[in-house]
C-alpha cells in the first residue's frame, strides 16, 4: 500500500465513532477532579513551609516560656524558620518560572522537566536538612538531660526519615530521567 491509501483507510473512520461516551460518568469525574488541581509539588511545598514554621515557632515559644538556656533548641528553632523561608522563596521563584514555557509538546516537556528538576533539588536539600535538624535535636535532648533511650528512639526516627527521603528523591530522579528521554526522542534528527 502507498501512503495515500493508508490515509484513505484512516479517513474512513471519521464517520464511524470508535466509542460511545458515558456522559454522566464523565461529568462526575470532572466534578471530582476539579478541586484536585493542586499538584503534588504544591502540596509538599506548603507542607514543608507550615511544618517548619509551626515547629520552629513552637520550639521557640516553649524555650521562651520555660526561660530555657538550651542553645541547641534556639538554634533548631532558627534553623526551621530559615528552612520555611527558603522553601517559600523557592516556591515564589517556581511559580514565576511557570509562565516561561511555550505551549508546544516540547515546551510542555521542558516545563515538566523543570518541575521534576525542582522536585529533585528540593527533595535533596530537604534530605540533607534532616542532618542539622537531627544534630540540633539530639544536642538539645542531651543538654536537657533526657534519658539515653529517648535519644536512641529520636536518632532512629531521624535515620528512618533520612532513608525515606532518599527513596522519595530517587522517585523524582526516575521521573526526571524518563521525561529527559522523551525530550531527547522528540529532538532527535532521526
Amino acid at each position: 500500500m502507498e501512503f495515500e491509501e493508508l490515509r484513505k483507510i484512516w479517513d474512513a473512520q471519521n464517520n464511524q465513532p470508535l466509542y460511545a461516551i458515558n456522559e454522566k460518568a464523565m461529568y462526575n469525574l470532572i466534578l471530582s477532579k476539579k478541586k484536585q488541581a493542586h499538584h503534588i509539588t504544591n502540596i509538599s511545598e506548603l507542607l514543608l513551609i507550615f511544618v517548619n514554621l509551626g515547629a520552629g515557632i513552637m520550639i521557640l515559644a516553649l524555650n521562651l516560656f520555660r526561660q530555657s538556656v538550651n542553645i541547641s533548641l534556639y538554634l533548631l528553632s532558627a534553623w526551621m524558620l530559615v528552612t520555611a523561608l527558603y522553601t517559600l522563596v523557592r516556591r515564589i521563584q517556581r511559580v514565576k518560572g511557570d509562565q516561561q514555557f511555550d505551549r508546544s509538546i516540547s515546551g510542555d516537556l521542558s516545563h515538566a522537566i523543570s518541575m521534576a528538576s525542582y522536585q529533585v533539588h528540593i527533595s535533596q536539600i530537604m534530605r540533607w536538612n534532616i542532618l542539622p535538624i537531627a544534630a540540633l535535636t539530639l544536642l538539645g535532648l542531651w543538654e536537657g538531660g533526657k534519658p539515653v533511650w529517648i535519644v536512641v528512639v529520636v536518632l532512629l526516627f531521624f535515620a528512618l526519615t533520612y532513608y525515606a527521603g532518599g527513596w522519595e528523591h530517587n522517585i523524582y530522579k526516575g521521573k526526571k530521567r524518563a521525561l529527559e528521554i522523551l525530550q531527547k526522542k522528540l529532538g532527535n534528527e532521526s
Partner: protein
Amino acid sequence: MTEKEQKQIFEEWLNQHKALIFKIVRVYGFTVMDQDDLFQEIIIQVWHSIPAFRKESSVTTWLYRVSLNTAIKWTKKERKHYQSEAIDGTQHILEESRVRTDERLTWLYEEIYKLDEIDRSITLLLLDGFSYKEMASILGITESNVGVKINRIKKQLISKSKKYDHHGI
C-alpha cells in the same frame, strides 16, 4: 470565565472533536481499560485548558496539543488497569462501539501502536493532514526535524503495509 461558560465550551469541543480524542486514545492505550484511563486523563486536561485557550490557534490544533501532551506523559506512568474490570470501582466512561471496523484500519492502529510515543504523535498528525509547519508548532521542534521523522515513519509504514498485502490478511 464562569463554570457555566467553561462547561458550554467543553461540551461544544467534545461534540465536534471527540473523534480526534478517540484516535489518540486508541493509538496510546493498548487495552480498553488503558484507553478509558487515558480518555479520563485527557478530558480532565482539556477541561483545565479551556481558560488558557486564547484563540491563537484553531481548536483542533489546541486539542491535539493538550491531548498528545497528556498521552505522551501518560505512557510513562505505571499501568493500573490490566484487569478487565476497574479495581477501584470507578465507572467506565468509554464504551467500545459495536460498529465493525475495517481490518486494515485495525492493522494500521496496531502498527502505529508499535512506534515510540513521539512517532505515534507525528503519525497521527500526518494522517490527519496537518502541515509540517503546524506539526512543528504543536511538537515544538523544527520543520526539518519533522520532515526527517516523517520520511522515516512513511518508509516504515509503507514497507510494513507491503508485507501485510503480501500475506493477504
